[in-house]
Structure formats: structure tokens, C-alpha cells
């Protein structure tokens, strides 16, 4: 980030982790991220796949398959994914993980910077994705349906901590900010989520000539992923994982880590509201997510041990 490269990574980090846990993969091996719309994939070899995150009504040769579980597919079969009926970002994982290029410690594609993932760009029709050697044979079934519902369903609330420029907003407008419903604008992407809803009133803040001339201008500073900034005093924008690493707009708050992932399941048009927590609350939310993922990890590990025992 110190060189202007955003942190990147899966928009819904939790859904991405869940895909790999279901498949018994090594931590952090590449999966395919799809936003709003899926695609058609032809299997060139027999393998196990898993889908998590947004529900794009996946079908194998026309037969619906479950999301949040490992599915055995054979060479020649076609996986079809449509428009996300619920959620927004979906992850397609394969046992072993996909082959992808690593850049600056991440396999994710940073399209604006042309790095990482598959040739530093979004996939195109005709691209061939290769799989890596699987660590183990995953258990076919639904070992994570409950956790998938808990972790990957679209949220109705995003929790945040108070921002560094809270003084720009008076008590009344701050209160309004925490009770109003906001809607995700179609002009949203991995860089930022623009919101439709009331813009908090701006208090006239004492300025120096260096602050800038706009009502919410501040001296350029680093941007935390999840920052809720009020751009130009007219627009509420939540910064995503591919955000500019610095900015010069006042921030009313910052969405907690656990909910930055959940934000990824808010499709354009979805409504939610904000709820303030402190850092302890943010850490607790992260612990809860980790516990749910641990349950899947243990179950997956036990099944692997069991099947290894049977094989021996």
C-alpha cells in the first residue's frame, strides 16, 4: 500500500476462505471471483469444485447444484452460472486451487494496475484455467450450508467505527446517518460503493488554505479499506479493497473488517443501514467469523482423516 497499490484480495474474503476450506485446499490458493453475473465453464478434466458467496443459480449440465458444498464434476460437463439472485460476489474454487500469477503477495487481479491473477485482467471467453494439484480429496456433500448462510448472506447492517473527521458532522446529522437506510448505487465496484441516501450535513470546519476548497476536503491522507467518505460534501462512498490508497475527503466512519467482506454481498439496489461499534466490537465480529470458518475446517479435516483411514 505504501506505493499506491491497494491491498486487493477477494471482495468477500470470508466467502473466498470458505470455498478453500470446503475443498480442503491450502489457505489462500486462488479461486475465481465473479461479480453479479457468472458465466459458462466447460470442464476439461474430472475435478471437485465449490461455489460460495452470491447465488448465481449454478447448474451442471442443466441440473442445479448446491452452493457452499463440494461437487464432483467430470470432463466434458458444463457449469453454468447466471445473474446473482441473492448476494453479488461469487467464488468458484477447485480442489487444489487455480493456477494464477502472484504479484506483491496476492493472487488477486488488480485490473487498474494490470497485475496479478490471470494475466492481470478479467477473464475472457476462451480462456483456459488450470488447476493445481489437490491436497486431498474433499468430501462430497454439504459440510458448510449453515456456515455459508451465516457468513455469506447479504447483510442488513454494516458496522463501523467512528471516523477521524467526525467533527465535520453535527450530532443530529450523525444520528440520522446511523438510523437511515442507504441503497447501493449501480455505480459501485471493487474500488468503492457509492450509496444513495441522505448525505450527512457538514459543519463548517475551520480551514487552512491547504485543506482545499470543498466542504469535506481534508489534507491528503492514507485511506483505510472500508472508509466511509463524504465526497465533495455530496456523496457517501464506502471504499473497497481496490480503493485509491490515499484521498482528501472527510471520513465519517470506517466499516469493520468482518463487514467489509459482507458489503461484497450487497448488489446494486440493496438497502442496509449503518451501526456504530467500537474496536472491541469489531474484533469480536471478526472472532465470530473465524469461529464459523474453524467449524468448517475441523469438519473438513475430520472427514479427510476418516477417508484416509478407510483407504488405508
Amino acid at each position, binding site marked *: *500500500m*505504501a*506505493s*499506491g*497499490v491497494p*491491498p486487493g484480495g477477494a471482495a468477500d474474503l470470508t466467502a473466498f476462505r470458505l470455498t478453500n476450506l470446503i475443498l480442503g485446499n491450502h489457505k489462500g490458493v486462488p479461486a475465481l471471483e465473479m461479480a453479479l453475473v457468472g458465466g459458462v465453464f466447460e470442464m476439461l478434466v474430472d475435478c471437485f469444485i465449490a461455489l460460495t458467496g452470491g447465488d448465481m443459480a449454478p447448474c451442471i449440465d442443466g441440473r442445479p447444484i448446491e452452493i457452499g458444498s463440494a461437487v464432483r464434476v467430470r470432463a466434458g460437463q458444463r457449469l453454468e452460472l447466471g445473474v446473482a439472485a441473492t448476494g453479488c460476489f461469487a467464488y468458484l474454487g477447485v480442489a487444489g486451487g487455480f493456477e494464477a500469477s502472484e*504479484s*506483491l503477495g496476492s493472487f488477486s487481479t*488488480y485490473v*487498474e*494496475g*494490470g*497485475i496479478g491473477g490471470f494475466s*492481470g485482467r478479467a477473464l475472457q471467453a476462451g480462456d483456459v484455467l488450470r488447476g493445481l494439484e489437490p491436497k486431498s480429496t474433499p468430501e462430497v456433500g454439504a459440510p458448510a450450508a449453515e456456515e455459508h448462510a451465516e457468513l455469506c448472506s447479504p447483510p442488513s447492517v454494516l458496522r*463501523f*467505527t*467512528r*471516523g*477521524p*473527521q467526525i*467533527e465535520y458532522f453535527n450530532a443530529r446529522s450523525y444520528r440520522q446517518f446511523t438510523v437511515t437506510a442507504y441503497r447501493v448505487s449501480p455505480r459501485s465496484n471493487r474500488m468503492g460503493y457509492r450509496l444513495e441516501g441522505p448525505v450527512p450535513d457538514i*459543519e*463548517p*470546519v*475551520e*480551514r*487552512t488554505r*491547504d485543506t*482545499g*476548497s470543498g466542504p469535506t476536503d481534508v*489534507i*491528503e*491522507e*492514507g*485511506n*483505510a*479499506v*472500508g*472508509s466511509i467518505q463524504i465526497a465533495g460534501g455530496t456523496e457517501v462512498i464506502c471504499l473497497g479493497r481496490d480503493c*485509491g*490508497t*490515499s*484521498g482528501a475527503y472527510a*471520513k465519517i466512519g*470506517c*466499516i*469493520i*473488517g468482518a463487514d*467489509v467482506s459482507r458489503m461484497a454481498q450487497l448488489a446494486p439496489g440493496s438497502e442496509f443501514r449503518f451501526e456504530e461499534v467500537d*474496536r472491541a466490537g*469489531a*474484533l469480536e465480529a*471478526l472472532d465470530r467469523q473465524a469461529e464459523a470458518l474453524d467449524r468448517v475446517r475441523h469438519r473438513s479435516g475430520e472427514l479427510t482423516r476418516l477417508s484416509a483411514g478407510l483407504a488405508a
Partner: protein
Amino acid sequence: MSGVSLAPEPRVTWCGEEYLIAHLSANFGLYSAASALRLQHAVEQTELGEAIIDSIPGWCSLLLRFDSRLPVTDDAEEIVLGVIAAAEKQTVEFESRLITLPVSYGDDFGPDLDFVAQANEMSVREAVERLQEVQFAGMVSFTPGMANCMWLDSKNALSAPKYSSPRTYTPLGTVGLGGSSIALYSVPSPGGFQMVGRLAVPVYSPDPVLPPFEKSPTLISPGDRLVLASVDAEEFEEIGNAVAEGHYEFDIQPGRCRLDGKDLSWT
């Protein structure tokens, strides 16, 4: 305009559980920018160092990103404020190379140069001379490798308002002026700075063809000094060809910045 004041600096604020931002000052200037770099180096030396994943110096602030699972981060506010209080009495040195980058000023590459000269009540020639005075790249941020600079000597500084409505597109390599800051657009991006010229060389390269990009896709590091040297159209083309053929040699001189209390010096 009277109004509320922001809480006094220094102050630290958690942004979620992973990021902490320290505001050092409300004064834009070389000392504030260097102080942010000093804090960056000093915090790394504390017990918090092992928990730091990333840090972004701002003009008057430092944003730290931690591995929030480490218990030491529970004490981050206290530790950072302690470091800030002690820093003014300490001497810190950090790398500050002197990098000369060729720039073609004006014409199609710098359509706003005339406006900038007028805004500063000087001739275009004088403006270009000022633009070639040494810059301090205090921030490398926004897009990969994008350097934000201020004049090392503020008496050389030019100043111009930003676009009232930002452009949706700024060509790769544009040298922009907004307020008294220079920005080098490392990738095509939206932008609001006045366009005064175009770099003949890349400052961001995801494919490491040229030697300075072998270790990092970004050329400039926070703390480096830059000279944006004027070249004519013919030289601009020659340099561009050398870059494309992979044999351009960047002019990078080693150097260090020393911040002793409030005194800045370079060696």
C-alpha cells in the same frame, strides 16, 4: 467562516479494527511530510513493528495497517502517541534518493501550462524553470506508483486551483499541479490537477523490463527527491524509444534525509 475545530493534533483514531491513523499536524509543509516519514520509521522500531502490515504516510498523517489478531495492537494508540511525543527530540535518517525524470512541458502534453503561468503571474518559461526545481515525494499513493510531491524549497513553489469538476481521464505520465502539489500520474486515471507536462519515462511498470522495476513495479518511494527536467520533443521521442527497447538508464543518485528535531538536511 467560524465553526467547530477539529480535535487538536496529535491524535490517533482507529478505522475499523485493522487500521489506525495518526494525525500529526494541520500544517501542510515539508516538516509535516518528513515527520510522517519519521513516525513511520520510529513506529517500526517499537513492539508494534511486528504487527504492521502496511503504512501510508500522508502529508500530515500516517495510516498504519495491523495484523489485528496480535494482542500488541490493543496498545497501539498509546504506543503511537508515545512515539510521536518522543520523536521531536530524536534524530531519524531515511533513504531519499535524487531521481531525475525527463518531462516534456506545455503544448499537447501540458495543455494547462499557460493557465498555471498566468495564475502565478509569470511567463511560461519562468513557470517551467520553477517546475524543474527539486521536489520532495512525500506520498506515493492513490494509484500504483503515483508520486505526490511538494517543492523542497517552498519559495520556488507554484500554485494553481484544481479542476472544479475532475476529469474522468488523465493520460499516462501526466505531470499535474494542484494547490502547491505536483502529482505524477503513473497509470491513466481520473484527476483534477492542472496538466503541465508529460513524463518521457514510466514510474510504474508491472512487467519488469527496465532495471529499476525488477524489485518493485513502482519507481518512486516516499522520501525520494525528484528533478522534473525539461526535454524537447526530439529528446522525448528518443527517450521513449530507449524505454521501449529496454535500454533506458534512469538517473538515480543515492541520498539520505536526516531529520534532527525540526531540522531537515540531506546527504
